């Protein structure tokens, strides 16, 4: 399966300043969002993991969109990511 992950609002700074990442999981056809986030923390994130993940979910203040819609419309962290999904993370914690 293939998943696209986008980071913005300053979060990209923790990920090598790269805004879009394409992830492939050859052996899976779905992955719980929670596992995807922990995977990102352990494999993509370059610094200060505590600014992205707190208590095994995204840090409060980071908005998550699943295929361009608020993750609160789905099951939030319990959502099961499918092949072709785009997951977007936007920090609201940076200065306005």
């Amino acid at each position, binding site marked *: 399966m293939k998943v696209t992950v986008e980071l*913005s*609002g300053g979060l990209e700074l923790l990920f090598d300043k790269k805004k879009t990442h394409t992830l492939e999981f050859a052996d899976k056809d779905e992955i719980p969002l929670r596992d995807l986030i922990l995977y990102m923390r352990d494999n993509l994130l370059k610094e200060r993991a505590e600014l992205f993940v707190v208590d095994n979910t995204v840090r*409060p*203040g980071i908005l998550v969109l699943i295929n361009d819609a608020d993750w*609160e*419309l789905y099951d939030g962290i319990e959502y099961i990511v*499918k092949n072709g999904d785009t997951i977007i993370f936007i920090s609201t914690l*940076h*200065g*306005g």
Partner: protein
Amino acid sequence: MDNTTPTTTTNVENSTPIKKKSGGKLCELCNVARPVLKRPKTGQMICKECFYTVFEDEIHHTIVSNNLFKRGDRVAIGASGGKDSTVLAEVMTLLNKKYDYGLDLFLLSIDEGITGYRDDSLETVKRNQQQYQIPLKILSYKELYNWTMDEIVKEIGLKGNCTFCGVFRRQALDRGAVILKANKIVTGHNADDIAETVLMNLLRGDIPRLQRCVNIVTGSEGALPRSKPFKYTYQKEIVMYAYFKKLDYFSTECIYAPNAYRGHARDFLKDLEAIRPSVIIDIIHSAENFHFREENKMPVQRNCIQCGYICSNDVCMACDLLKNLNSGLAKVKLSINLKRKDKDNNNNNNSNNNNTTLSNQLVIEQK
């Protein structure tokens, strides 16, 4: 949530069938389109078009019900290039047209002189100017005070530099507005910022500021009136609005500003919000209903004998800080002030003391 599947065919855009609570649900407002957002204030699930409408209309309502503007006002929008002020510029332009407010709008940016931070964000503001076709004025600390923040940090180090920046910025916005012949200033402070400030003032026991920080208009006694059209607007919705509308904003933290105290207040608030989203508006409503005793009013305002800026002492804070900077004493004085401030905080609040007010100034304006 009940699962009445609507008969209309809904999502065609997504080939992957997604198992989700909102699966077959339609926007709670129009009952036609697919929802894209759950509103933190109300819990409503709404579509993109309805979101734009309610978002803009609520801000319009805030503006009208608080009489923030009159026809013919010249309004300077404090523009940093960040999300809040970018959305503010968008919404002010849009509402001014849609409801024919009759305002002359300006973008006003302050260049603190921070390499790699403000120079980049100013590029964003310049693009905003092109997009909205409203005049832009950039005013620098260097022009106003003959010091850039880079130079100030070189002189005094990283302790207390935010005090300088906060004091200077507050005046700089007023002066820029005067140059633009504006009679009002609007800033992008949103509901989250205000709730944070309420918490911080409460935790510090700063009663005069606790009283003032939920006012939608400040600075009426002589300084230009400043208002916050986003007072009741959630950060989440501002960011979602910018995202869906593909607005161009800049998001990097100031390289000099780890405002630790505000950071803790923000994290605390975000944790609460995750459990109970209405907490932000609830804090604001609580603070609006506090009653204060007379003796806690802010000190009487007068004009700085050096520069004429409105202040509560003979000499304003900016002039005072500048005097120390120019005489090379800033580092020494600052450390004395910080020490004295700690002592003051133990003897309740006494906001007539210049040193206390100086260090606390930040609580109101900076975020």
